């Protein structure tokens, strides 16, 4: 049973710096080098130096260990290091880990990072073909022999049921892709800068795994992103306006599987994100109406719709209507993924989305929402996950 009361983490810590490498299809350097560059960039942004860092957090999937990043980045002794599991579900949880360390005094300056050559080296979209006979491996073994081996296929099996339940066609997913790509079009850091798409482009794009089309799927990216977390108090003295961690939460559902939660419920929602949503609202004391813009994890479009419902931005089955007619675009009901998301900007396992939330609160986004006070950010969907409400410092 997950928590049923507000927690006490909110307000103690803040994101003081963000930094990234360029986002490309072939970085030409090691994943470790990308991680170090991103960490340095984030520290520069905060006005801190490597010697200030006493904590590092990353994903279990990251190939660059905390100690090695510290070695190569000029960081000395560490008093806190931690990793979070479940792929992109870790993104916001790295910040939660950092905030927990900072709030309890275990560490003072914690850098969260994620860096990979996900396009030029290990492509997640290529699919998995074998797994060790561990509990984790065995869970994937129930689908692999049948050719259900890629993230797109796992998501599509959920999406088909969702579309069926609400009488929708795959075209209902189009507005999510169009919103992302519209925002990416004006973002010079985005891979799809200057290349917006229309609903017709979406509907005409080829099938990847029905009901998902090419334009429902995120990119594959080489790059690195880092975030500097310190106490809200110290952050106020640093170079940038802080983004206060108003609430942070992790969530796993009942009968949760890593990516193949096909055996529970009715497959029309994301129960683990429901856990996150309830906790974020309870701790922040906020609700959907208080959120000025959101960064909703978008490796595939259908789960953006389901997240709108889990967070209560609309009722069950109403997200397609909510997203239609530009509802997710700048100027719409809830501008979502103003950096272009992982479809438009880059696939950095959700970490680039946290950076965009910080830019919105600083007033420095290329697609700035007027004077936002609170931004919601979510991590990987269809996996055990996490979320953040960030507030203007």
């Amino acid at each position, binding site marked *: 049973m997950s928590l049923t009361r507000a927690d006490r983490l909110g307000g103690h810590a803040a994101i003081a710096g963000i930094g990234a490498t360029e986002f490309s299809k072939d970085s030409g350097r090691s994943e470790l080098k990308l991680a170090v560059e991103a960490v340095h960039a984030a520290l520069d942004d905060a006005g801190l130096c490597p010697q200030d860092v006493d904590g590092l957090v990353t994903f279990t999937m990251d190939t660059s260990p905390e100690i090695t990043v510290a070695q190569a980045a000029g960081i000395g002794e560490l008093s806190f290091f931690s990793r979070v599991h479940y792929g992109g579900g870790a993104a916001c949880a790295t910040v939660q880990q950092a905030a927990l360390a900072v709030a309890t005094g275990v560490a003072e300056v914690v850098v969260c990072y994620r860096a990979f050559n996900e396009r030029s080296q290990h492509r997640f979209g290529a699919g998995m073909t074998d797994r060790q006979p561990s509990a984790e491996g065995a869970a994937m*073994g*129930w689908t692999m*022999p*049948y050719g*259900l081996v890629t993230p797109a*296929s796992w998501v599509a099996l959920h999406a088909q049921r969702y579309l069926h339940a609400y009488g929708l066609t795959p075209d209902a997913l189009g507005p999510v892709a169009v919103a992302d790509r519209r925002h990416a079009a004006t973002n010079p850091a985005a891979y799809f800068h200057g290349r917006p798409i229309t609903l017709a482009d979406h509907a005409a794009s080829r099938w990847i795994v029905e009901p998902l089309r090419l334009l429902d799927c995120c990119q594959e990216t080489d790059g690195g992103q880092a975030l500097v977390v310190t106490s809200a108090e110290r952050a106020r003295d640093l170079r940038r306006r802080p983004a206060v961690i108003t609430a942070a939460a992790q969530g796993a559902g009942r009968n949760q599987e890593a990516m193949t939660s096909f055996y529970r419920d009715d497959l029309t929602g994301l129960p683990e994100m429901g856990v996150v949503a309830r906790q974020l609202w309870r701790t922040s004391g906020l609700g959907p109406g208080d959120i000025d813009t959101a960064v909703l994890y978008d490796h595939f479009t259908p789960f953006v719709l389901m997240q709108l419902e889990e967070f209560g931005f609309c009722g069950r089955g109403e997200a397609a209507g909510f997203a239609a007619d530009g509802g997710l675009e700048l100027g719409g009901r809830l501008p979502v993924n103003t950096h272009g998301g992982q479809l438009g900007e880059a696939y950095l396992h959700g970490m680039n989305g946290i950076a965009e939330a910080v830019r919105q609160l600083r007033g420095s986004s290329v697609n700035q929402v007027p004077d936002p006070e609170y931004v919601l950010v979510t991590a990987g969907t269809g996996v055990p996950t996490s979320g953040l409400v960030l507030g203007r410092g």
Partner: protein
Amino acid sequence: MELQEYAGRPAATGGRAPDPVNAPMIRHWCEAMGDANPAYSGPDAVAPPAMLQAWTMAGLGFSGNGNGNGNGSAARPGRSSDYDDLLARLDAEGFRSVVATDCEQDYLRPLRPGQRVLFDAEIESVSGRKRTALGVGHFVTTRMDLRAYDEAAGEKPEEAVRVARHRFRILKFQPGEAEPKPDGGSGTEPPLRPRPVVNRDNEGFWDGVAAGELRFQRCAECGVPRFPWLPGCNACGSSAWTAEAASGEGTVYSHVVVHHPLPAAFRAGGPYAVALVELAEGVRIVSNVVGLPPDGVRIGLPVRLSFERCDDELTLPLFRPATADDLPPLRIPVTRTLIVAGAIASRDYQDVHHDAELARAKGAPDIFMNILTSNGLVGRYVTDWAGPKAVLTGLAVRLGVPAHPGDELTFTGRVTERVTERDHDRLTVAVTGRTRRGAHVTATVRLNVPVPVPRPVPAQENPVPEGPA
């Protein structure tokens, strides 16, 4: 003249079958195919419809093997000079190898012993230069009209009536220029499906598969059924459980069609359906729904368990539409004898069907089955099921991976259309014959079956004994 300009020119004019339809050739052909249909013997015998092409084959003197015994130089009965020119040009351009790829036949009237077949054919099309799995080449499609008259009864050729139409496509190609496979597919061993992940917690499931059962767990404390296999119950936490065999009935709860990327093991078959099946017992399992096109899978579709052998080491619990008329599968070991006997019985003396050394010289790993034998086996498979009163009215065959000695062909089929007429049903049956490398033949067979029709037989209730390898 461009190659494409041959389209519309005659391929054969005034062709006359070298032999009348006759009982000995029919018997040899049936022996080669293993077809025991009584309709093909006795005083009222008809010729097996799928044998059609055997009557018009030129024979050993004209086999086009490029070894000086024919290939256009000798006068081939009926063949036009245009068609000889076209083939000679393709040979001259280096496309010396030939393989049949498609065939469509409409059977208008049954052929009977004593009839003489006459034929005319036209070059329907010549494709541009195509890069195929075999090599670079051109597809040549011909269309033949066949007529017959009862020579034995003293009829004259002018009295011939139309008996069949036949469209045939060959690939004239240059071997060894095949598109390099991006990964895995270059070796002769076929890529295999990803293996199951078996450990101490789930081995009971795979033991069940080996025993022909789909086993799920049931909590011994609270009675809640569960799948996938775990050592404890999520509903109550108890570690006590029993295994039960599912009835095999289920419905599609959700489904996808995988288009890209196609894992190596699935590449030959193209896009495929993966479904989440809710079993009658209330648990769900991911599997494939086979026996209908991938885009035919729907949420709510009733399906039935069917254990299917995917390769030498892997049998998986798959599902087939429960309401469909499934033909019981038929396994045929592909022996050297079958390939050679089938080729000779159909009067196809192309060396690639009987001479392993020459087959290898032309880029094949060994001799391979000719399309006429594939046709014959498809016809036999359907009439074995439909019975001797069934009349084949059409056959369309597309060849995929070749069938070599040592392969085993597994035929599966399903009635895709049934139209009830006054005294017979018109059926369309989709047939696939697979080897472990993929689909060797994909066919659509049309037939008339006098009522009452045979009852559909669910595949898994008719286990086919393992044939000799």
